[in-house]
């Protein structure tokens, strides 16, 4: 049996492909691109939430937020490590990120403008991310699937903390309730955009479904997210800003309106509210750290010579 047929059989039988197994070039490239974009998203995602660490309104909230942003750095690390099992190099992927040649989740190109945004990002953005990511725990590539299991557990924790912050704020003052509603109004549509364009316009879906890299279509996941979120919003006491949102008993799902896809493509294309700022921040951190990484490498090399193990 040839290698390609064996690979196809492994994938079709829902078995895992491991780093040393043969795989088609297209599969390898698609995976590196997808996992790297996910890793970049974790790292860029540190910025909008990190924006509020210094101003967190209680010490407990400061600890929770700092721990969350730290988890995101950790997720980035696991995911870059997963790309390295496919022959990619973290340094090269970082170069691609800061030169704009590889993308990250567009949601992080929206600004965080109040502390309620910290809660809403946990609830809606992490919630949407979980909907996207839970199926990836069964994705065909072993190291990616295993990283995703750990990430999903931690993301669930973050989602719950975000929701708990919002619950607390809703039980506070009128100003806090208004702050939560205003934040939900700003983040609802961008959260729906996180599932990607409608299936009819999504270029990568079909092959990725066949390879079991992707397991559900964009529209299926978006529906799941809306159905999951509506009762949570009710419990919270906020209104989701979509006049078309209503339960459809025939479908057994909620009907809902479409996000502004022109805005989506603008943000994806680099013209979002903070695209340039996010990349410049990442580039500055990377460039400012160059002398530190060089020093660590030089020290390690000297040390190896001194120990006689060079």
């Amino acid at each position, binding site marked *: 049996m040839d290698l390609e047929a064996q690979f196809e059989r492994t994938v079709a039988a829902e078995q895992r492909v491991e780093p040393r197994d043969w795989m088609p070039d297209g599969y390898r490239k698609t995976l590196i691109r997808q996992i790297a974009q996910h890793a970049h998203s974790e790292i860029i995602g540190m910025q909008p939430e990190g924006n509020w660490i210094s101003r*967190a309104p209680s*010490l407990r909230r400061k600890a929770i937020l700092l721990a969350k942003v730290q988890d995101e750095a950790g997720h980035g690390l696991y995911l870059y490590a997963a790309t390295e099992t496919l022959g990619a190099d973290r340094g090269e992927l970082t170069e691609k990120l800061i030169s704009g040649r590889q993308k990250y989740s567009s949601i992080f190109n929206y600004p965080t403008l109040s502390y309620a945004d910290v809660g809403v990002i946990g609830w809606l953005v992490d919630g949407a991310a979980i909907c996207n990511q839970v199926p990836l725990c069964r994705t065909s590539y072993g190291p990616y699937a295993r990283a995703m299991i750990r990430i999903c557990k931690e993301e669930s924790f973050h989602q719950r903390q975000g929701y708990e912050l919002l619950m607390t704020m809703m039980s506070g003052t009128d100003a806090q309730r208004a702050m939560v509603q205003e934040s939900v109004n700003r983040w609802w549509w961008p959260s729906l955009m996180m599932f990607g364009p409608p299936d009819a316009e999504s270029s990568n879906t079909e092959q990725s479904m066949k390879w079991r890299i992707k397991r559900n279509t964009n529209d299926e996941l978006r529906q799941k997210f809306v159905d999951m979120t509506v009762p949570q919003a009710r419990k919270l006491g906020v209104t989701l800003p979509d006049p078309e949102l209503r339960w459809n008993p025939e479908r057994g799902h909620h009907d809902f309106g479409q996000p502004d896809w022109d805005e989506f493509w603008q943000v994806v294309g680099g013209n979002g509210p903070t695209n340039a700022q996010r990349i410049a921040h990442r580039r500055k951190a990377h460039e400012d750290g160059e002398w530190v990484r060089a*020093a660590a490498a030089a020290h390690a090399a000297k040390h190896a010579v001194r120990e006689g193990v060079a």
Partner: protein
Amino acid sequence: MSFDNAYESLIDGHEDAHWAFGTGFAEPLAGVDREVPDVDRADLAAYCLMLGDDALVLSQRLAEWCSRAPELEEDVALANIALDLLGQARMLLTRAGEVEGAGRDEDALAYLRDERDFRNVHLAEIECGPFAGGDFGTTMARLLVFSSWKLAQYSRLRASADPVLAAVAAKGLKELAYHRDHAAQWVVRLGDGTEESHRRVRAGLERVWPFLAELFTPHAVELRLAGVAVDPAELRSEVDGVLDEVLAAAGLTRPADVPAARVNGLAGRDGVHTEAFGYLLAEMQHLHRSLPGAKW
């Protein structure tokens, strides 16, 4: 565990069992005796603030690195150290409020005190990077000095007559040992690495060295609380020994000991701070103060 069920579990946010972790942090001092020893309460409260403010303010400074570190691993490590210090600060401020007995909790003390009521040493508050005032080398130089000093202080504080301070110190020691080790490794790497890194960490040491003397200058409160507080003058030789050892391994020489002058004899422990400190507090406190009566 079936991951398809995770969707369902997310719908009901109130069932603890559906989540991998809880949302609260466990009470780290559960079971510790909280009796107040027979000393002047105002002095003990002030001493708890001194220790708590040291930890809180340095945590705030270190968290500035978040998303700005030279490596992802270092982002994780610096956040971890900031979190450890924040945890220590919360226990110490809570104790300060409890001993004071005026109903102030950790947040009232962190967010509603003005600059002159903060008791931290200047070393914790000065800017050492990532923004103005330094870089990663300066940050590691400060962390080395601070954690070496704190470690010496906490190792004595374990025997404090205040059971809460003793417990905080016992718990904090393990954390501080890691912080010191982390900073020492970096100072050695940077001192030994390249010409540029040697020059930068050397500049960092020179930046922080004038703030060393304050660490070992006893405040009247510390001297009055014999048996409860640690006399910082006793820490000098131990800390010097550690610093000399690390600097030698790094190929760095010790900067000249020229202490920063005090203001009419006063410094951080007296509530007299550096210019940078007001900005730190303005940023840290503004949201909390903007919404009086809010619940977080």
